[in-house]
């Protein structure tokens, strides 16, 4: 049982961490796209709507790709007032029930409608409302679904880890490596 829990958490990490890292590395590309946009406009009097739309597309990709990654590395903001003084067991209880009662409903609720938005967009071949904008808006809508799905997966992983601690087996497995 404990091995299964640990295995699930590890397997999920093997998906969310590489996705997070890969999308984080889009950041330097986003920077270069903005610079290119600036250079084209001021150097060549050329304003490309595609490039401006690409900027928010890339930003969205980074955000959605890193949400789960950030949860795995415990970067999401918490109010530490009491939490910081909790015992590991108590923290695990918070993580398990918080995941079950708060994170999962949020992720499933938003993911459900994001999937619907994506399939509808795909079915009508949606593009940008600007005629020369980026085509295939459904791609980024799929990313929104995928980002929430990954966050849900990471939620399961963190709940598994919390369960391990609650079963008193937390210390017999390697901790999350950053």
């Amino acid at each position, binding site marked *: 049982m404990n091995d299964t829990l640990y295995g699930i958490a590890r397997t999920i990490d093997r998906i969310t961490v590489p996705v997070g890292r890969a999308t*984080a590395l889009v950041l330097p590309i986003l920077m270069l796209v903005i610079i290119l946009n600036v250079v084209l406009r001021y150097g060549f009097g050329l304003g490309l709507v595609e490039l401006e739309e690409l900027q928010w597309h890339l930003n969205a990709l980074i955000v*959605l790709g890193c949400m789960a*990654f950030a949860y795995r590395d415990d970067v*999401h903001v918490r109010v530490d007032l009491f939490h*910081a003084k909790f015992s590991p067991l108590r923290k695990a209880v918070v993580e398990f029930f*918080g995941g079950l009662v708060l994170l999962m*409903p949020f992720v499933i609720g*938003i993911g459900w409608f994001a999937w*619907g938005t994506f399939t509808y967009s795909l079915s009508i071949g949606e593009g940008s409302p600007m005629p020369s904008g980026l085509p295939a808006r459904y791609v980024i809508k799929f990313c929104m679904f995928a980002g929430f799905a990954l966050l849900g997966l990471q939620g399961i992983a963190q709940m598994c880890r919390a369960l391990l601690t609650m079963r008193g087996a937390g210390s017999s497995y390697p901790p999350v490596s950053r």
Partner: protein
Amino acid sequence: MTQDVIFVALMFAAFAAGLFAGFPVAFVLGGVGVLFALLGDLLPMLGIKVLAGSNFIAFASDRIFGTLSNYSLVPMAMFVFMGLMLERSGVADRLLVAMGRMMRRLPGGLGLAVVAIGLVLAASTGIIGASVVLLATVALPVLRRANYSMPLGLGTVAASGCLGILVPPSIMLIVMGDQLRLSVGDLFMAAILPGALLAFLYAVYIVVLCAIRPELAPPQKVDPDEDTASAVLDLVRALVPPVLLMTAVLGSIFLGIASPTEASGVGALGATLLAAADRQLTWQTLKDVSYGTGKTTAFLFALIFGASCFSVVLRGYGGDEVIEGAIQGLPLPPQAVLGVVLLVVFLLGFVLDWMEIVLIIAPLTVPVVVSLGFDPLWVAVLIAICLQTSFLTPPVGMALFYVKSSAPPDVTTLQIYRGIVPFVLLQLLGLLLVWLIPDIALKLPSLSY
């Protein structure tokens, strides 16, 4: 109406429960929103009529997509990137050494140097974590060797490191612009002088205090052989890169050369070039900075997602009318209503971070205050100054946390608290000045063409 008040109170209570249990705030907001939306579907069975229902989860999903496709939030990631990259560039260390050499003759000279560096860093990065940690790790040992009073040193480091939240570029101002429908460029302009005013107040306080009680900051021995000219040269050398960066980012917005997004890209590139000039730009550095930025940006956006879910469902329970009614029902003149709102923001700042306040409280209160006839930009700046104090007020103050984690181990929390009190008071004085003289905030935006 009474029914609305009950459900609004219940929603906030559920939020507070999850919040103080220490579960990530973004998920608490989103989860409570979804649960109450579902509750809205069940209530009619009990004969209770509410607008909220599971369709509000769909609204939340639509709003989240709206946030993702919002072009004006793109600078957030770039300013975070810029801050983390700047940390790698060695700019701060060189500044401190050079400034310390120049200022040690003044009463409290080292303290002044910390304030000045805090201001320069503030104007070259959009996040505060980096500058507080930098100042704490670099400046605290120096201050201690100089036999500086520890509380004074700790307060100076924490307060100066936090200037970046108000002084543009600032992530907080970008989120405020989005939530309050104000131009980010205008907010940046409006926050420059109030930020500088705070730094000025810190400096005056340190000079006056050290003149009265010299034992707090013992005068430094000056090496008689020391070459003043070389010290000046060092300082200039240390100042050039951050000032260039600052000019590129803020100057280009101010002079109308670039939009905030363009300026943020230029700033990120500038910081990367500075790191390269310092031979710190390796593949590993780029990876570290990107991972760190990705995670920070993700948690900032996740908070916006959670908050937009929470607030649309709150609206489904009549939350807007409840809050609006409560504020408008205050038997007070407009100035006093504004005062009450600022007081609430200040008090909430003790237990909450700026994000929860900007995302949940500000959109509910600011429009009501603005409808009383105040300039929205000015109100936003007053709230921003108030929020700046939330970083310094215990028990939940991010700056205190950063200082504690990077200070020498024998520094106690009590010392930090004692050191921070005067600076919180100075910020309130700054708030009062901007209130009495709105031009401190509004002059620059009206000048910029």
